[in-house]
């Protein structure tokens, strides 16, 4: 019973991590950019909800998604496009600069204290599924993630721009030689990444009921770890990695001896190191492909 309850916790947390990891993994697969500012996309999404508090939830949610998508596009246009040919180190530091900038702008405007937001309050109670009581929000997270994954998969298989993006992720220069427009593919990637980030943000705000200027940092770190576990450059891998981290996290929380529980994250990352030693290229990447990373 408790095991099933924990399993639901694990899967729903994994679902959110999967969405976050997908956002990171998508940009990386196309541009080799590790976008540290992805966390701030999540954070800004939260603050849009705060700004529109009191409006119908649908309005709040849609506005949040829209603003974050636009911010993602802006980020690409202003900070990352000029750096397209730069080294991965420079790109990473640039993304950190963007992250730092956004955090401090929000800090300056809203202050450091976390602020309460009422969002999807009705998802607070639980749904009875046979003997299980599943919090509605967790249930929604799982459903939304599955739907998103299916939609993304269809998008990448069936749509013209989706196939172009897969080609660009594998060999960007060759894709351009065939006529795939670099700017358009990258822009679409950032928009999708933004939408994924805002979905994570909607969940976080609904679950914690608050926003703070540092709320994106934890999530983005976990998203990296999940992406690396799945195999940087693989979208299925990112999703898989997310679920895996969620499961390990919740399991450790549930099964660690009580006095070790505060150290849970240390154990998660210890497990991560062990994983890296076992399979450094990630779950979905073949070892031969790793050199490209």
């Amino acid at each position: 019973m408790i095991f099933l309850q924990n399993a639901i916790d694990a899967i729903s947390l994994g679902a959110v991590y999967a969405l976050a990891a997908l956002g990171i993994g998508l940009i990386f697969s196309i541009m080799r950019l590790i976008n540290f500012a992805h966390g701030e996309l999540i954070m800004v999404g939260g603050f849009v909800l705060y700004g529109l508090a009191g409006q119908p939830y649908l309005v709040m949610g849609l506005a949040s998604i829209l603003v974050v998508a636009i911010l993602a596009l802006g980020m690409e246009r202003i900070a990352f496009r000029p750096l397209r040919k730069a080294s991965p180190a420079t790109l990473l530091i640039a993304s950190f600069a963007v992250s730092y900038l956004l955090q401090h702008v929000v800090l300056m405007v809203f202050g450091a204290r976390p602020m309460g937001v009422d969002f999807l309050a009705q998802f607070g109670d639980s749904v009875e599924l046979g003997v299980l009581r599943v919090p509605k929000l967790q249930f929604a997270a799982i459903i939304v993630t599955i739907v998103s994954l299916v939609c993304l998969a269809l998008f990448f298989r069936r749509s013209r721009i989706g196939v172009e993006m897969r080609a660009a992720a594998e060999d960007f220069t060759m894709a351009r030689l065939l006529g795939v427009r670099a700017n358009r593919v990258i822009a679409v990637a950032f928009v999708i990444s933004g939408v994924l980030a805002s979905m994570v943000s909607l969940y976080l705000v609904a679950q914690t009921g608050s926003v703070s200027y540092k709320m994106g940092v934890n999530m983005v770190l976990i998203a990296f770890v999940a992406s690396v576990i799945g195999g940087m450059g693989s979208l299925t891998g990112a999703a898989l990695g997310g679920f895996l981290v969620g499961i390990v996290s919740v399991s450790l929380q549930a099964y660690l001896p009580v006095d070790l529980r505060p150290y849970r994250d240390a154990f998660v990352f210890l497990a991560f190191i062990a994983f890296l030693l076992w399979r450094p290229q990630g779950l979905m990447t073949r070892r031969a492909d790793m050199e490209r990373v």
Partner: protein
Amino acid sequence: MMGHTDNRSWQSAALLLAVMVAVALLATLAPPALQRTVTEAFIKLTVVIGLYVFVGNSGVFSFGHVGFMAIGGYVSAILTILPAKKEVALDLPVFLETLQLPGLAALIVAVLVAAIVAFLVAAPLVRLRGIALPMATFAVLVIVHVVALNWQSVTGGRQALVGLPRFTSLWVALAGAAAALIVATIYQQTRHGLALRCSRESEVAAAATGIDVERERLIAFVLSAAIVAMGGFLFAHFLGTMTANTFFIDLTFVTLTMLVVGGMRSLTGACAGVALVSIVSELFRSIERGIPVGDHVIEAPPGLQEIALAVILLAILIMRPNGLMGDWELAWPARKKAKEGA
């Protein structure tokens, strides 16, 4: 050819040292607040030089060095805080509780502990390739952070550990940075440093010429951790306190940014990066405090400093993606020599 390289590297180090001493001398004329800024800059310089020893020579990013800063600081804290205070704040075994060492001894122990931890941690990890090694160092950062935050009896946990003797003056910090610079320069000249830099350009080619890339990385990592731990030591005795949350993401990225923006392929770059970030930060900090214009004082909203810093860093990266210095090391302009043939 070897001799020529030696000369340039030492020239460069000598010039950088001269600049550092000059800055320190100028700072003694400055108001105390500015002196503090310069002291802090020298401390950060120590850390960034330590970072460069690994990242600059190997081309591999490390996110874990701040963890070794923390180790350096906490070990020294345990060894230098008054036993009476330790008894109250921490829960240490008796011999540690009663122990109190002078600064230099504490430094040596702190650096040794950090080096040993670095060795144990890095030995299994240096075989990792691609993005796995940087991510593993990131895991090290998180683990150190979580442990520091929760190991109440040794680190004080979430609360700041206070009572460290504050002996990091301007000249102590300068000495630390200078020592770091000298050690880094010596290392660069050894065949280990050279071998590592070969692997930076091409792992495959280096391995083919018989270079044990993993071993060279391990050596550089341990040395780097030792220098960074010294930086942590200086930092701890500058603030007088140790707070676990200081040694996490923001400090990691600020130091990495200093390295990359200055130019991560040269020591001059490391120094330039620290100088740039410190100057810009200080500039905007004083703007925040208010610029007197006639009878009025123009004040900027708090937080402007960080925003301006981020914007300027981005601008510099966009204009010079390889950092301010690129590959370049500081040197006297070369005298024109006769060409020795094509």
